[in-house]
């Protein structure tokens, strides 16, 4: 039954400032929101989904970005035409909004209670309600422990998940009819994400809310969507019931997106038989910081007695949530950090205690690929210089180094002319490729990849994962692949190690771990992966074609 929609977006167009890469952020968009139904608007970055949400709330960053056409009909009014004073009465009272970044979404210098109560004082005086009591109810309704004490605490004391719950409570304070959630769980760990999605589901049913949920993660879509709208370059390419769109996608772009989502079913892989290249025993590391303002000592235990081993040509996945110590482990192995105790052996030789000078030859054999494409390349140097840096550092004469650099760029499917251009002229995916080229320059035996694809859109992610697959097959390095995304781990790793609070709680071949997780935490992790239950999303990584890498390894 399709009851009457509560909010109708009709032919919305949002113009971008001159000089932007295209004319319109959103072009001719028509969508409806129905009470007690969740519409998922899904699309890659730059698809205009967030701006659509902001347009509804009337929060477009004036004057650069303006709604130039269409209407947003809500409760008999066109929101686009409303003056600011009238729009202010809609915001919060009739339409609530939750944003992506919980850590920075709350005012750091104001108590939680005040931030919720101020809405009643300034935007809902006529509701005749005691703000403090109402706030306690709201905090309880979003599942936060001991709400009364919470009223007087400051945001910095809460975790990401807790803060997101507070944001949701704030959005629902004045009992709006519509809730807009712009990627509310993207910044959260997968277990916390699962709880928030469940909470949103319950709240939507309890208050018969019309929810517009914006995300780029199809797993999340499959968990929560009643209806799906797929957007690309500001236009609606597909719209329909959740089951239909996920099961039988009509538009080729939707198909391509779904295909790009790595499946949770790990492909069958023969165990790698090769000598162990990298081994660590009882690695431990504790961060000690002296707070300058008060001189208090604070200690955070990052690694607790970590043993792992990677064979030549094998990809070991290191999976864990934020704060599990997986990044610290990666940095200790490439010797960006010094472990407190324990040993690291490369081809049987203990290296962690070697002084700088003796360790230098091993530098060439261990390389790292970084996570953030925008901060892993020096903005002031050309791509050619970046890739050749390692070769030059190890004494290769410049012309030869630059020639090798151009070759490497070709290997990672970038044009040779890229060598003369600067990083800011490339997209996220291309920058990651440059990072990979840089890491491969010294033909390392060990490659540590720290969340190499987490910052990329799913389609770009797929291409880069494909590149990793080729590297694995052609150059057969021992690779430590750090990620929080179980789907990615499933598709690329031979073996997987699950880390929690500095310890490896479980380790084994990927297919075995995914099929029958032994440790409770692993089970919880796997269950929390969005879209795991509903449908076998996506498919195994495509086999590697031999032709891609003509160049034989050394």
């Amino acid at each position, binding site marked *: 039954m399709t009851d009457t929609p509560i909010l109708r977006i009709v032919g919305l167009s949002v113009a971008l400032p001159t000089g932007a890469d295209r004319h319109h952020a959103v072009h001719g968009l028509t969508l409806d929101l129905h009470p007690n139904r969740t519409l998922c608007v899904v699309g890659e970055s730059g698809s205009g989904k967030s701006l659509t949400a902001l347009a509804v709330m009337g929060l477009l960053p004036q004057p*650069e970005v303006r709604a130039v056409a269409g209407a947003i009909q809500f409760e008999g009014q066109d929101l686009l035409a409303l003056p600011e004073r009238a729009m202010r009465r809609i915001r919060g009272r009739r339409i609530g909004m939750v944003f992506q970044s919980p850590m920075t979404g709350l005012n750091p210098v104001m108590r939680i209670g005040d931030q919720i109560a101020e809405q009643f004082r300034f935007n809902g005086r006529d509701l005749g309600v005691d703000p403090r009591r109402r706030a306690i109810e709201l905090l309880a309704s979003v599942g936060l422990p001991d709400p009364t004490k919470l009223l007087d605490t400051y945001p910095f004391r809460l975790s990401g998940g807790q803060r997101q719950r507070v944001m949701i409570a704030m959005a629902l304070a004045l009992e709006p009819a519509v809730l807009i959630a712009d990627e509310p769980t993207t910044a959260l760990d997968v277990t916390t994400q699962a709880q928030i999605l469940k909470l949103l589901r319950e709240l939507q049913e309890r208050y018969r809310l019309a929810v517009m949920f914006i995300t780029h993660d199809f797993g999340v879509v499959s968990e929560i969507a009643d209806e799906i709208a797929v957007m690309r370059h500001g236009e609606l390419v597909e719209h329909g019931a959740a089951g239909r769109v996920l099961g039988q996608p009509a538009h080729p772009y939707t198909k391509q997106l779904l295909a790009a989502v790595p499946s949770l079913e790990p492909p069958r892989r023969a165990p790698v038989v090769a000598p162990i290249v990298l081994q660590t025993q009882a690695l431990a590391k504790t961060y000690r910081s002296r707070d300058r303002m008060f001189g208090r000592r604070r200690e955070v235990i990052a690694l607790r007695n970590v043993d792992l081993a990677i064979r030549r040509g094998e990809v070991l996945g290191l999976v864990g949530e934020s704060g599990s110590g997986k990044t610290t482990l990666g*940095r200790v192995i*490439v*010797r*960006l950090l010094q472990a407190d105790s324990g040993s690291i052996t490369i081809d049987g030789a203990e290296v962690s205690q070697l002084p700088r000078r003796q360790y*230098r030859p091993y*530098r*060439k054999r*261990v*390389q*790292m690929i*970084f*996570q*953030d494409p925008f*901060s*892993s*390349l*020096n*903005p*002031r*140097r050309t791509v050619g210089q*970046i890739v050749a*840096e*390692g070769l030059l*550092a*190890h004494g290769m004469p410049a012309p030869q180094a630059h020639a090798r650099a151009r070759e490497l760029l070709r290997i990672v499917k970038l044009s040779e002319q890229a060598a003369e251009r600067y990083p800011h002229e490339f997209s996220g995916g291309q920058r990651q490729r440059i*990072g990979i080229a*840089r890491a491969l*320059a*010294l033909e390392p035996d060990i490659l540590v990849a720290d969340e190499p694809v987490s910052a990329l859109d799913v389609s770009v992610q797929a291409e880069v994962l494909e590149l990793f697959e080729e590297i694995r097959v052609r150059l057969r390095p021992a690779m430590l692949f750090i990620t929080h995304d179980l789907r990615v781990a499933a598709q690329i790793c031979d073996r997987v190690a699950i880390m929690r609070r500095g310890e490896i709680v479980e380790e084994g071949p990927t297919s075995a771990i995914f099929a029958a997780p032994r440790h409770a935490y692993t089970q919880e992790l796997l269950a929390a992966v969005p879209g795991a239950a509903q449908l076998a999303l996506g498919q195994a990584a495509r086999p590697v074609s031999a032709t891609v890498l003509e160049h034989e390894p050394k």
Partner: protein
Amino acid sequence: MMAIMHRLFRHKGAAFGVGVIALVVILAAIASILYPDGPWEMVGGIFEPPFQRAHPLGTDGLGRDVLTSIVYGTRVSLLVAFVSTVVAVTVGVLVGAVSGYFGGRLDDLVMRVTELFQTIPSFVFAVVLIAIFTPNIGSIVAAISVVSWPPVARLVRGEFLAIRHREYVEAAVVLGVSTLRIIFVEILPNVVSPVVVLASLMVANAILLEAGISFLGLGDQNLMSWGYMIGEGRSTIRDAWWLSFFPGVAVVATVLALNLVGDGLNDALNPRLARRGRA
């Protein structure tokens, strides 16, 4: 580089600033051609009022032409300002880089010293230094440099601390690039823009400092400086207001121009701010 210049000039304030600075530099260069006899020559009656043919800005207590003095005053201001800033920036960058990159005991020491300089009233300290080492152009430049390097050191240290943990620096470490090369190739180029902006503001501040020092009578007696002229005009402010007024205007114009250029550079060098067209 051209893009930066283009953005700089789009910032109308900066364009005005660059214009004024150019004028001041040109005046300083051709002063001895414009007025070969120098500022100390007694060319007219004493205390002649401004805005008349012979002496457009009037004359002072010894019949010296105010306009000539202002033109010659540009030399002292520019010389003191630029030399002291170059010295202060060089020292500041070196100290900041070392303490920012290596941290530890050295960093603590550097922080203590810069805090010490921050607490001392720097103008008073400069005045004492100059009085001690006998006021002359050399001691003025030295004194201003001594009090102006700490802010640069703090800025560079901060930038180094931030950039040092950026992934592209860690990548260089992993690649086995030498520390010196990392400092000079990876980090320093990215510190240039904030330092350039600070440098322009430091030149402005140095001019104010020099003017204050000369005003108190600690300037170089043989060099005509704006601060000296303002101080000289003070005792006869009632009947010869122009003696203090015009050199003051010269100081304000030059310092204002430098500040505008500083703002312009700031927006030109980190474009994301420019987007909001901050004046």
